[in-house]
């Protein structure tokens, strides 16, 4: 689906505002997991790399695309694993929450 410039800018602007409002509320306690999680989400760039490697329009594009898939996938896998590991460690002193 083609996307015209103006629509793209609207999408970007609105997403930036949402990001700003949502992330402002993240407790400083969780700033490290925040960074590893956004990093994993950002690796959604893998979809572009998959199409590039999969379409195989040129040898260069296929090779660079494959390397790009490797880089992005390792961010997705590693990012989610470490974020979950970190979040599991945060325990409250109150008895009600595990």
């Amino acid at each position, binding site marked *: 689906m083609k996307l015209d410039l103006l629509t793209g800018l609207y999408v970007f602007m609105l997403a930036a505002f949402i990001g700003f409002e949502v992330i402002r509320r993240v407790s*400083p306690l969780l700033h490290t997991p925040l960074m590893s999680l956004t990093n994993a989400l*950002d*690796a959604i760039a893998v979809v572009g790399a998959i199409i590039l490697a999969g379409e195989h329009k040129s040898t*260069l594009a296929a090779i660079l695309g494959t390397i*790009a898939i490797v880089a992005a996938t390792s961010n997705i896998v*590693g990012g989610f694993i470490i974020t979950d590991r970190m979040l599991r460690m*945060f325990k409250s002193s109150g008895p009600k929450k595990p």
Partner: protein
Amino acid sequence: MMPTETFIEITYLIATALFVLSLKWLSSPTTARRGVWAGEIGMALAIGGTLLYRGIVDYKLVAIGLVLGCIIGVPLGKVQMTAVPQRTALSHAFGALCVTLVGTSEFYLRSPDIPPFMMAVLSMEVILGSLTFTGSLMAAGKLQEILPQRPITYKGQNFVNLAVLLAAIIIAGVLVAHPEQTRLFPAMIIIPLMFGVMLIIPIGGADMPTVISLLNSYAGLSAAAMGFVLSSKLLIIAGALDGSSGFILSVIMSKAMNRSFTNVLFGGFGQIQTSAAGAKEERPVRSATAEEAAGILAAASKVVIVPGYGMAVAQAQHKVRELYDSLTKRGIDVRFGIHPVAGRMPGHMNVLLAEADIPYDKLMEMDVINGDLPQTDVALVIGANDVTNPAARTDQGSPIYGMPIIDVDKTRTVMVIKRSMAAGFAGIDNPLYYLDKTLMLFGDAKDFVGKIVRELSGDHHG
């Protein structure tokens, strides 16, 4: 066929919603893990949808890429918590690498028919991507201590850096006007690659939280630019979310170090170090043994522990947990004062303390704990230096003047665990150490805290 295309778009739409929810749920430790699941489901949907795309002819390469990525990703997800800053820097580098490679391929596939706007965002994608790639690798190298951590500065450094960046932007400008000039394209990658290295050369360890946040922001922006190039709303949104997250963290970090945001943007880090060679005089300090320290702690009713990166270096967090237990058992109120830039990345200290099983509701933000410090009996500073330096409040000549600090000097007694009287990373003398209420506990953080714990559990002071 329309149906498949529409189906893929719908998976992207759901993924987008899940990504926003994922970050929303991260706001509190009680819902945060749900946030990770939302992110994982969104990611799986988007990748699954993409694999259905009819233009894909070569599934072998895609599979190889995905499998190799998993093989590299799993160990990167299992690093030690002390190594999280360098892991994060490395993942910024990987993200930027992906974006740069895709941008490069797109250029060669589309040249010379690239409309000016498209070429402009593509240039932005590639420039931001490549400078983030080398910059993050440098940062990771410094954090892992493969590279020298001391900042390297020279006269006119900012000027040289800006000139290099400008050169890359000029080349981008020429390419926007003449996208058929494919010979110029490699220069638009190589110059920002150099710039990334030059940007991090003057950075010292204490500035790493700001730098990592900034690189995070750049990585996000480059991904958003890639979204424009590929006409992918999903990617624009994910990039914008990542970019604004990095931006917010950079602002918080630069405020916590009292740097203006422009100062940060233009790589004005590390300047503290050059101007920090102030006059140092020999002044008397009071030191104490572990036995005395244990006695003072046992007699207190409110204790605040202020940890810094030194605690992580000494791997003292588990001993600190024992101290916390031992004091809490005596009915003493123990809390932790966490400075925003303590550690090597935003929130690093919280993760290390949480790993040592210290409840997160005992980890207090700077502003919260500062209000309580005048009523606190003992502040125990472990491996923190500049973030407790009262000169930031009082001495206008100090390079850190104006930086918000944890006001440990307002408590009744301050105890500082430190190896020796050598100045901290920034090379700034700390007047805190010469106060009458301050006791210096000389030694390795882990050993010393261990000794205090032993004294507390022994009967000498019971």
